[in-house]
């Protein structure tokens, strides 16, 4: 008899499993929709955890834990994600392997509670710095698992803070996934404040030149690791006339739409950044540079946060016209993407 190893799991259950498999030692969190089930799910595992007084405390407790050498994470969204940027900024400044699972909800303010793609800028550039943080945008449940594992690994290997940028649709949706087939090695944690020698560690500088030098060193590392981390999903078809770009679960809808469009002879193409920071710039240039491409359409549940990044990252010598399908705070279905071609 064939064994079906697939399990029916919510996105939140998948995140909890990924954090367990990544050997995270603690979660600090504050309840906010749509990430409550990550907190309660983690607590149910019996692993160390604390429901803090707010997201600020959760963020700094994660900073403290990783300084001591413990893999730690938090999860939040919307206004909670805003508060977490305080700790994230310290993590960026001190190069701490800080991991957040963000369930995007509608904004601004308390907005709506389940879905949007409006926390892209906040995740990528939300601190008072240069945005040197890793941001992953999963499109499927399986990818949510893989990228959560990767977030811990990359954060500890390369010493940049990491955000898995998802949303309440993906977190609350149940899907059949076989996690046992995914073999991912863990990068181990190590104390950043060691026990056997003395460390004096500033994050505020007297001289402007000192800070500038620190940022330069971080930028150099960032440039070196970017090609290793930046990743995109591309439909490899060089006859593309209209290239559709989307990320996260909107990417899944666009991918399906492109499949259907191509069946009907329409030369649509598909590019999905899996990492938003660092952005898969080389792949973007390659695809947008195909001679057949007449137009790029950026599709997103925001009023242009992804589009801004795409236009910024695209090599200036590549001349291509842009169009947009922007539905801030609303989901985007396959039919709506197909309708763009009618």
């Amino acid at each position, binding site marked *: 008899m064939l064994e079906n190893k697939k399990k029916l799991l919510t996105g939140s259950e998948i995140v909890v499993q990924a954090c367990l498999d990544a050997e995270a030692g603690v979660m600090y969190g504050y309840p906010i929709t749509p990430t409550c089930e990550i907190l309660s799910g983690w607590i149910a595992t019996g692993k160390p955890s604390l429901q803090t007084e707010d997201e600020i405390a959760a963020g700094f407790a994660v*900073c403290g834990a990783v*300084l001591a050498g413990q893999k730690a994470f938090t999860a939040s969204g919307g206004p909670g994600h805003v508060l977490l940027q305080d700790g994230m900024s310290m993590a960026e400044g001190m190069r701490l392997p800080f991991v957040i699972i963000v369930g995007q909800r509608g904004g601004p303010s308390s907005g709506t509670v389940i879905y949007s793609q409006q926390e892209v800028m906040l995740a990528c550039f939300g601190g008072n710095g240069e945005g040197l943080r890793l941001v992953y945008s999963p499109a499927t449940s399986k990818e949510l698992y893989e990228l959560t594992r990767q977030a811990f690994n990359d954060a500890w290997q390369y010493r940049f803070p990491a955000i898995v940028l998802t949303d309440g649709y993906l977190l609350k949706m149940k899907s059949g996934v076989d996690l046992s087939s995914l073999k991912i090695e863990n990068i181990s944690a190590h104390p950043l404040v060691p026990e056997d020698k003395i460390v004096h560690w500033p994050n505020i500088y007297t001289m402007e030149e000192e800070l500038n030098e620190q940022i330069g060193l971080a930028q150099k590392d960032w440039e070196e690791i970017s090609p290793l981390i930046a990743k995109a999903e591309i439909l490899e078809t060089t006859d593309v006339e209209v290239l559709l770009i989307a990320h996260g679960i909107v990417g899944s809808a666009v991918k399906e739409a492109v499949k259907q469009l191509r069946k009907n002879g329409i030369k649509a193409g598909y590019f999905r950044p899996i990492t938003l920071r660092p952005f898969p710039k080389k792949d973007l240039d390659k695809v947008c540079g195909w001679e057949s491409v007449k137009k790029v359409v950026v599709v997103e549940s925001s009023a242009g946060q992804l589009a801004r990044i795409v236009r910024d990252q695209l090599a200036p010598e590549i001349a291509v016209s842009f169009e947009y399908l922007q539905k801030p705070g609303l989901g985007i279905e396959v039919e709506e993407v197909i309708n763009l071609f009618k």
Partner: protein
Amino acid sequence: MSENLAKFCPGCGYPITLLMLNKTLEKLGLQKQAVLGLDIGCALLAWNFLPINTFQTHHGRVVPTMMGFKRARKSSLCVALVGDGGAYAIGLQSLIHAAKRDEPIMVIVTNNTVYGMTGGQTAPTTLNMQITPTSPEGNIEEPFFGPELLKGIVKEGAFLARTAVNEPKQLMEYLEKAIQTQQAGHFSLVEVLSFCPTNWKTVGIGTIEKLNGLKETFKLGEL
């Protein structure tokens, strides 16, 4: 002995607190286990002052950071050094909850009645009618009593006390008790009345008189 020269203003009280802390750690043989987290404000200037592990955090955030550290490394002796603004204004929420949960960390609060680093603005501890750049007509509020506030919240075994930088014997005694409190698994807070001649605009004996005057409002002793 300090590791590096003090970066504090001449006449500042912080180096006294820090050297007393170091002396106490040395006496108890705990310098290796000690981890000193610094809030932002004048406390940050201690980043390379003592021969113990030290790092800076954010304004008002040293308490949750040290909580995360302590929970991750239980063998460590976690000390959070913070000013009166960091402890009782921007970081109060975390301080109250850390005290309520009886987090085994040690908090040293410097009370000099002003925001020293930013130019002497009104702090939660500023006296009634004290003039500051943000209270030019005199502070209309009454000062804030941190250890007294926490008294109603902490669990049995916690240690709360107030002393002053010109009471070295008592300061050292309280720091030692706070360390022992952490070793017994409980929360401790020592508020230290401290000099700020730069912002008080005092010199010599005037600075000492000002500090001694504060003791009338902020009572020294264990709570």
